[in-house]
């Protein structure tokens, strides 16, 4: 299941969505909004996406993960809009017959999501300034 939405992420519902009698392992990754980055304080974050492309890319990630590992169920939920500190911005849940596939696929999914899925975050710093985060690009 792939979701991009503006509502708070219900991690229990995400776990339930991948539970299955065929699975011997469930791995959940939550990305949460961090207060301090390199000593600088964040007050809130805003996420935006190129929705149509982000959804398509997430579907491709699901397909590739299912080809590479033996998985039972897979859910990716990414939140958009305005988030306070300590909230979940992304949830990835993977179930598999065996734990190694669930761990490996979960790690690959979040790493690859962060590389290719067109979603961006803006840091709203505690000093009142804000900045889009674009890794590798001069600000």
């Amino acid at each position: 299941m792939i979701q991009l939405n503006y509502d708070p992420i219900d991690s229990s519902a995400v776990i339930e969505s991948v539970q299955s009698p065929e699975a011997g392992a469930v791995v959940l990754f939550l990305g949460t909004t961090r207060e301090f980055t390199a000593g600088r304080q964040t007050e809130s974050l805003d996420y935006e996406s190129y929705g149509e492309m982000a959804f398509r890319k997430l579907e491709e990630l699901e397909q590739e993960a299912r080809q590479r590992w033996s998985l039972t169920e897979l859910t990716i939920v990414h939140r958009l809009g305005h988030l306070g500190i300590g909230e979940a911005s992304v949830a990835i849940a993977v179930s598999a017959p065996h734990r190694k596939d669930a761990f490996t696929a979960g790690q690959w999914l979040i790493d690859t999501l962060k590389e290719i899925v067109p979603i961006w975050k803006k840091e709203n710093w505690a000093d009142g300034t804000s900045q889009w985060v674009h890794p590798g690009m001069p600000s």
Partner: protein
Amino acid sequence: MRIKLKLFAAARQAVNQDSLEIELTDGATITDLKNELVKQFPQFESMREHLLVAIDAEYAKEDQVLMPGFEVAIIPPVSGG
């Protein structure tokens, strides 16, 4: 031909609008598009080498040729998660 560009994040902020239109010669590639974008909107100069372009919601290669009617988006380095 006139191509409409979708803009996101810092690229959107650079011109304070979520899309813009750019005039390109027929047969223009992604590289030509980036060159013309920087020429017409110098505020993209510093981000140029970091920008990817998507055509119809798929990453495009530098030598891909643009056609009228394509949905074209400027994709600055992503930062989801």
